[in-house]
């Protein structure tokens, strides 16, 4: 029977570099919160085209970033409660409810969590990968009259879809987004600033991708939790000062570990793949739980799918680059993700799959069962599926996860011993 070692605390070698992230994201959200009092505009973005305004020095919100920040700062529950009292239903996206709860508190003049809330924006940009992301900006517009720039980022089902979708998005950026931003800010759009930000993003993402490559080492020098908390410098902090330096430090620390054979999880026994967005509110608990089994998650389509093709970032074609990176290069669609996950089985020497199925977030859920089936059939790598959420505690059962993890590790062990026995008898 596989058992977590209950007598000893799980051993995790924490990284030094990731300690720098907290102050970076705090500063970002503080700038956004104080923008109005400093006479600056601020913008909310649903989806991934935050660089359109962040590159113009406009404090810019990013939906997923803020919800995970609120969960990390332990204030999301305040928003959920307010949302529920304002008719929000629990099956709706938890990121959506998190924002709607904050809007309720603002609208009703009720107390807001100090130092974490953000004010109503001057305008918003809809550039969603996930369709649910439209609804909170529409509601923001209905409730507070905030103008919205609606952009359509069609998802790809095949390379033919990418070929036609990318030019469509580029056209919208040129014909709709830029003129609308100019109108709403009252000043010309500075394309050079966007290009500069993309130059920095490219350098940063290339270094980040080297960090991801280092996760292929056995034992791995870091955990997926380290890679997830490090996401902001290539996402909503992309192109901002300090982001390249962050990843250079991280790379140096990981290289040092690899050189010295230092594992993030000492005695690493199981190497796992994670599917879905991270459970931001449970990072510590999940990392300790897995460490207690000497298991390490070393690969995930989220966050690895974000700018994994950074070499294609072309700062001289800034609008095409945004379209290409966010329409053609993200692994949200199962058709697109499956070949990568298949490739990662060997590259990362995966033993098993952990599929988070979130009842409120449908971005990665569709096709998860078929992905598990395919990887198991083709490569003999088993998987488990368990319920949880990125930020809402309502859907997560620790007992369910424990049971399924134990089943997963037993399966992995059974297959290992079976293989070993077969090779002995054949040998």
């Amino acid at each position, binding site marked *: 029977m596989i058992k977590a070692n209950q007598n000893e605390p799980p051993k995790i070698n924490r990284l030094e570099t990731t300690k720098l992230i907290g102050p970076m994201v705090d500063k970002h959200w503080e700038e956004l919160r104080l923008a109005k009092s400093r006479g600056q505009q601020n913008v909310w973005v649903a989806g991934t085209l935050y660089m359109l305004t962040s590159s113009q020095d406009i404090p810019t919100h990013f939906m997923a970033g803020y919800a995970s920040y609120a969960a990390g700062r332990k204030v999301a529950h305040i928003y959920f409660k307010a949302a529920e009292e304002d008719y929000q239903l629990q099956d709706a996206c938890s990121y959506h409810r998190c924002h709607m709860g904050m809007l309720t508190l603002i609208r009703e003049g009720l107390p807001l969590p100090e130092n974490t809330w953000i004010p109503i924006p001057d305008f918003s940009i809809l550039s969603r990968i996930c369709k649910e992301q439209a609804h*909170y900006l529409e*509601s923001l517009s209905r409730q507070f009259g905030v103008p919205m720039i609606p952009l*359509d980022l069609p998802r790809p089902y095949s390379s033919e*879809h990418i070929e036609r979708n990318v030019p469509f998005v580029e056209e919208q950026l040129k*014909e709709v987004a830029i003129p609308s931003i100019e109108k709403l800010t009252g000043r010309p759009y500075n394309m050079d600033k966007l290009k500069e930000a993309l130059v920095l993003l490219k350098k940063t993402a290339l270094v980040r991708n080297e960090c991801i490559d280092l996760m292929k080492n056995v034992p791995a020098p870091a955990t997926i939790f380290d890679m997830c908390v490090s996401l902001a410098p290539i996402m909503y902090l992309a192109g901002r000062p300090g982001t390249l330096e962050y990843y250079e430090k991280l790379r140096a620390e990981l290289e040092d570990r690899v050189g010295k054979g230092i594992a993030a999880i000492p005695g690493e026994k199981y190497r796992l793949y994670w599917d879905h967005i991270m459970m931001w509110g449970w990072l510590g608990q999940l990392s300790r739980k897995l460490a207690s089994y000497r298991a390490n998650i070393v690969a995930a389509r989220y966050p690895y799918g974000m700018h994994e093709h950074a070499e294609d970032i072309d700062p001289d074609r800034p609008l095409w680059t945004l379209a290409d990176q966010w329409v053609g290069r993200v692994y949200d669609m199962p058709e697109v993700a499956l070949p990568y996950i298949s490739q990662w089985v060997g590259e990362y020497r995966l033993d098993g799959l952990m599929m988070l199925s979130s*009842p409120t977030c449908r971005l990665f*859920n*569709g096709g998860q069962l*078929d992905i598990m089936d395919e990887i198991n059939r083709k490569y003999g790598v088993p998987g488990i*599926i368990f319920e949880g959420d990125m930020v809402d505690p309502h859907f997560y059962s620790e007992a369910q996860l424990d049971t399924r993890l134990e089943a997963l590790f037993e399966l992995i062990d059974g297959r290992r011993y079976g293989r070993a026995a077969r090779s002995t008898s054949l040998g």
Partner: protein
Amino acid sequence: METILQKFLDITNDPYLSVREAKERLGRKVIGLFPMYIPEEIVHAAGLLPVQMWESNESITWGFSHVLSFNCALVKSVVDDGVKKKLDFIDGIAFYDTCMQARTLPFIFKRNIDIPYQETIHITDEVTNPCSRKFQILNLNILKESLEKFIGGKVTSESLEESIKAYNKNRSMLRRIYELRREKPGLLRASELASIVWSSMLMLKEEHNKLLEELLPVLEKKQMAPEEGVRVVFSGTNCMVPKMDILDILEDQGMLIVDDDFFVGPRYFANDAKENVDPIEALADRILMRRPICPTKVDAELNWGNQIIDMVRKNEAQGLVFLLVKYCPPLLCYYPDLKRLFDKADLPELMVEIEHEQISLESLKTRARAFVESIGDK
């Protein structure tokens, strides 16, 4: 009238059987369309029989190997039907990114369900975006070309124009039936009306038009006794066929249903496609119409709640029943904004959550009865 009505009910009572029979009788291959906005006219003009995919009334079993339980009833059911081979009479299927759940159906179908023709196009929901029209036209042409490859022939402008005419005729007659119900509430039970509209989604339009031509004069002439019951309007259900037994139960508790804005209702037939213009452009323009307001379309300038309240007032209704499909993100996310508006307008509202597996009908009866009585007391 009962005889004519029975013809519609026969189609919808067993859609699997009626579509299979129509296919054999007409010699037309069947193309399933995932609701709501892929233009049937293009499929019809290709000499095929377009049908809007529907929810079965069987428990989900094999489908749960491919979709998780917290998907909406339609998504779960279509996958379940597919893997159980209940859709083996379908020769092709076309999808679009209706919602986050429907988005992954093409992957699941390709991997598990053997259907000769499968296409996925983009139907834009950014109806106020000035770039949308050109891209919509491009995508409709992609659908047309892939159907041409499937049939091994051309879909001509003439055949498209003919299809549009047949569809516009159908839409205009369905609109008239709705008008008649508004004028003479109780003329048809809500489930009968839903059956009339739903059968249009399952039949060759020319044949449905003939049935409507038989039915309309009868409805026009029918005299109604003074109305009884509390006047209510219905909304919700999004892309699903409303459950007939739920409509019946609600009506039987003393509700007089005077109007709705269902997809299996006005959203299906409210707007005509323009005639005597480029037919593909006409169909793209129809998709981009902002009214009736639809929660799957992005339009921050319009408010669906106002449209529903207008429907209540125009019909002098006393209340609203909102059928909320469980796990339907557009409805889940829109509902709170609607509810606040209903409260502000002092509009009595009964929200009923709809799941694939049946909800407790007894408790629904009690809730509906209490709702009717509370309105009656006002």
